[in-house]
């Protein structure tokens, strides 16, 4: 019972960390590309 509860708690913690990271990155990461520079497209966002 205790290990089940512990597992559930850990699962909740990881889910929370996942949702937090997803939210943070989505905010930083709008789905807009800069038009690549053909001579050096490594530098595009």
């Amino acid at each position, binding site marked *: 019972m205790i290990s089940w509860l512990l597992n559930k708690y850990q699962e909740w913690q*990881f*889910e929370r960390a996942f*949702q937090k990271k997803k939210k943070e990155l989505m905010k930083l*990461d709008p789905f807009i590309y800069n038009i690549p520079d053909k001579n050096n497209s490594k530098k595009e*966002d």
Partner: protein
Amino acid sequence: MFFGSKTPIKKDKYFINLGDSHAASYNLPIESSYPYLIAKKLDLGYVDFAYSRTSIEYSDYALNTVDFTKAEFVLWQLAYPWRKHNWNTQDIQKAREDNIKSLTLKESFKIFAKVISKYKDSNVFFIFINQEYTTRYLKQLVKLNDKVFSENIEFIDFGFDEKHGGVNSQKLIANKMCEFLIKYDKKN
């Protein structure tokens, strides 16, 4: 929309580099990037399909535009699982369709497990960078395919944008991956 490839180091023996901005030497000189450092250490060339803000399905598509079995190996940095790629657009600005906003941790496991299982019998190695939540199920993913690197690599320094790994992080990734690849090669 497919962005093509580059060949930063051309040699008969080469590997293929896949992933998003973390694999694409984002805002760093290419000579400091981990794929370049790995190529130098292993005396190989490499073909680079990595591209910023792309998805897992994008990497999968890019890999299958070539006969990847001719490469010594493929090094695939798995992108964030909530990204979706739009194949239908001809407009580069719309190439990434959207994020799957409702994605759960369990669903992210399924996305990773699917691609990792698909390449189980191929010479494709997988790494996670900056995805600490994967530690919840990384052991399970390694059980599915032992070519998954068993830790999520966190940055030890940052590039100027403070979001991507800096020079020391690139060195760390290169060292860890070379060690992993050599160990795997000896074991098999």
